[in-house]
């Protein structure tokens, strides 16, 4: 698929940034489990946090596909940096842009799109991420013109950095006419009394990204912090997650491509039995398979993004893209680590990092099982 000149220029710019600015330092951040504020600042200056948002809110006036291309190029070098942008834009800023009131947009978007402030979205709870809203326990009740929030959220990306400004919290705000829980999203500014951010989780991967547990104990915010309409929370995050899957697929394709890049370089240098290891067909086939997986996953996410931007239904395509791209990332990371031999098991080599970063791609923004459930449902199998 040929990109337009502008997309190609954006891709090349971010490729250069990832190579020259991110690659030399990210390994150290990762090892220290430190959030890369300086890299985030520079990405902000490039406008990466405002890509799909119109210029009137400080955005770049691009579209969701531009964001995906950027996430892919970043993840080709490092996933922590890529997920930081993904969560900030797709989960933090986009819901405010799509569903927020004029005042909410004006309050939050200029700082979110510039990268000066990061946004987060809290849906998952310790008791369940897949079973939403069934397993949801967090509640918000109106009291004297304020929402009073109680509950706990688990694994929330970007929620506790020094520059986190706002978290969208999905909460039960009542019962619908049909007797189901009524879900709404409430914007909670960082630092609101009663809102506590725990210390960072120690993670298997994405170690330079910020993931935390949040707790709310009689946390009060103004009634006007309701995002969009009351009772629309479920519909809102379904849309957010459908789009987010395309973004995560792009990130996964980047990781899969990074495995190809690293392997191609290494098999020319590393020698065994008198030849570069790339001479051996067992290695060549591994790389050919890696390339096939990356290529097909890329086509899948491009296709889903194209449908989304044309206003066509894209739920199934987004689920397919997320599933094949997550698998491609995981399989390529395993193959690349194998090609690197003992060095592949060392944290100082990028493929070691890719290996640790790949697994979450089969879990976050809907597990691979959930993607299959969605695809089966779209095929009309749910009612059998």
């Amino acid at each position, binding site marked *: 698929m040929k990109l337009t*000149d*502008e997309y190609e*220029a*954006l891709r090349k*710019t*971010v490729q*250069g*940034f990832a190579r020259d600015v991110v690659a030399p330092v990210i390994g150290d951040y990762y090892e220290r489990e430190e959030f890369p504020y300086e890299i985030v600042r*520079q990405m902000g*200056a*490039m*406008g990466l946090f405002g*890509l799909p948002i119109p*210029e009137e809110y400080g955005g*770049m*006036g*691009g579209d969701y596909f*531009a964001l995906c291309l950027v996430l892919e190029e970043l993840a080709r070098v490092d996933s922590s940096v890529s997920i930081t942008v993904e969560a900030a834009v797709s989960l933090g800023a986009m819901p405010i842009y799509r569903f927020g009131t004029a005042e909410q947009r004006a309050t939050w978007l200029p700082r979110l799109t510039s990268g000066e402030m990061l946004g987060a979205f809290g849906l998952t709870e310790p008791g369940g991420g897949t079973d939403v809203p069934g397993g949801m326990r967090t509640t918000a009740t109106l009291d004297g013109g304020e929402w009073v929030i109680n509950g706990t959220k688990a694994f929330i990306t970007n929620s506790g950095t020094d520059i986190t400004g706002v978290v969208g919290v999905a909460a039960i705000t009542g019962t619908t006419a049909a007797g189901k829980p009524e879900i709404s999203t409430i914007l909670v500014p960082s630092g609101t009394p009663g809102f506590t951010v725990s210390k960072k989780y120690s993670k298997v991967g994405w170690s330079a990204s910020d993931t935390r547990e949040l707790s709310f104990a009689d946390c009060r915010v103004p009634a006007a912090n309701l995002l969009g309409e009351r009772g629309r929370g479920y519909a809102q995050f379904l849309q957010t997650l459908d789009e987010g899957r395309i973004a995560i697929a792009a990130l996964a394709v980047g990781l899969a491509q990074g495995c190809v890049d690293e392997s191609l370089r290494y098999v020319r240098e590393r020698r065994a039995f008198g030849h570069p290891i790339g001479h051996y067909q067992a290695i060549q086939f591994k790389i050919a398979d890696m390339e096939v997986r990356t290529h097909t996953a890329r086509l899948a996410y491009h296709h889903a993004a194209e449908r989304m931007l044309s206003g066509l239904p894209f739920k199934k395509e987004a689920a397919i893209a997320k599933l094949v791209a997550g698998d491609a990332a995981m399989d390529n990371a395993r193959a690349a680590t194998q090609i690197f031999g003992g060095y592949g098991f060392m944290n100082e080599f990028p493929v070691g990092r890719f290996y640790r970063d790949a697994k979450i791609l089969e879990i976050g923004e809907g597990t691979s099982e959930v993607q299959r459930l969605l695809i089966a449902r779209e095929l009309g199998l749910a009612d059998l």
Partner: protein
Amino acid sequence: MNIVVCVKQVPDTATERKLRSDDKTLDRDAADGVVNELDEYAVEEALRLKEAHGGEVTVLTMGPGRATETIRKALAMGADKAVHLSDDALHGSDALATSYAMAQTLKKIGFDLVILGSESTDARTGVLAAMLAERLGTPQLTLANKVDVDGTAIAIQRVTDYGFDKVEATLPAVVSVVEKINDPRYPSFKGIMAAKKKKVETLGIADAEIAAELVGLAGAWSEVAEFAAAPPRAAGTIVKDEGDGGTKTADFLASKKFI
């Protein structure tokens, strides 16, 4: 202030670069074209001067049709408009001929300040700034790692082996910059989109009043007589430490004039 930045498209240093066997000029189709790295610093400095003092930044490129990619990059960084000097007659111009063609163009478009990278990664002659200044009859302030403009006064720090010289002049002037001067910005997507709409004026040699016999291969004063691939790097010397490793290392460094 009317600033003109000279930007050159060069073959990507990360790819294999070749000379053409027919006329011994650089094979510009064989490799990806990128902005000469030092020129990005020149563009950045021009943009900073404009941000501080107002005015306009014009990109000037001499090169074949595909050099428009390079122009777009400089425009995406924030330059206002561009002039593309492009003519088959310019193919094969050496540094002297290039400086003539560029000087003619600069006279035509006008300038208060011309900024260049101090050399290009392909030819690496590093003489263009000096030649341009001579032809334009302006002061030359080369190898700058710092530029200050105050009204029509300009001062630079010129990098030398021993530190730096402070050089002052009045505008109009020609400045060349080294990479220590700044950190070039990455274009934003908004910048990339805006670049599409900016004006790029293409001039041929007649438009810039360039005499055909003074440029191109025929007009060149220097000629590539012969070329060969760079020899593979020789193996390094390993000095065994027999208690005198320090002395041997120092002797080696002294023999290479590092100390």
